[in-house]
């Protein structure tokens, strides 16, 4: 697959802060966006490329798995109904 290679990011000036932000990005995807923690994370994300990319890549990962569907195999419905004794219904 053709993939766009990105340059390695320059180490962020405050790594401790990045680490904290990254470890909470996951929570921020679920939490109330107005909570103090989420507001702080958002502010950091506005200024930090590395964390922004990290968040985007997590979101992309989730999106791919959501889109990856397995359709019901041919005849599976009929086989299920037969197994349940519901062919007549």
């Amino acid at each position, binding site marked *: *697959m*053709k*993939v*766009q*290679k*990105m340059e*390695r*990011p320059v*180490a*962020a000036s405050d*790594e401790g802060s*990045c*680490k904290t932000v*990254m*470890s909470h990005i*996951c*929570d921020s995807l*679920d939490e109330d966006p107005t909570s103090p923690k989420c507001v702080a994370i958002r502010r950091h994300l506005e200024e930090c490329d*590395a964390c922004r*990319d*990290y968040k*985007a*890549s*997590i979101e*992309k*990962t*989730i999106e*791919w*798995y*959501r*889109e*990856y*569907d*397995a*359709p*019901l*195999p041919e005849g*599976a*419905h009929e*086989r*299920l*109904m037969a*197994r*349940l004794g*519901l062919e*007549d*219904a």
Partner: protein
Amino acid sequence: MEESKLIERAKEGDHAALATLVKKYEKTIFNFAFKICRDRDKAENTMQETFLRFVKNLKQFDGKSKLSTWLYRIVVNNCMMDARKRQRRPFVEPKDDERDFEERFVADRLSAPTATVENDELKRVLDEAISKLDPSYRVVFMLRDVERLSTEETAEAIGVSEPAVKSRLHRARSFLRNEITKAFQS
């Protein structure tokens, strides 16, 4: 007809109501089973077992939780037992390793491929990553992120605490994201 009405009728032995319920959830349950088991035949078998148990235990369903959550729980039990039986190599249980975090999570950005899941290469990468992940993490990721259950519903479906759901979700996401990143870097 409302779902609660359908359930009431199905409990009374109404085949048409039962069939309507099965039809309503069969695609969701198959899809979810596939995402946990990663195998079409096993997913179909799990779907059948799930609905058999559904029919058998319907009278015990009290309506306190959603029917879908109840069905998910049956799938999870079925698939996880099966996965543990089949697996020879141990699954990866993601750890919160700080050095790991610095080196891999920060330095290696996910070079965003423009591909969609229609792409076979991407499917292969997604399959491989999720297959490596310990099933107890896999189900949390699938229920929370993919099926969009709440933390509370997920905790209920798999019988663990809400903090455990949060921590597993966090690690599962990072692990999958990392595996995908690695796959596209080589």
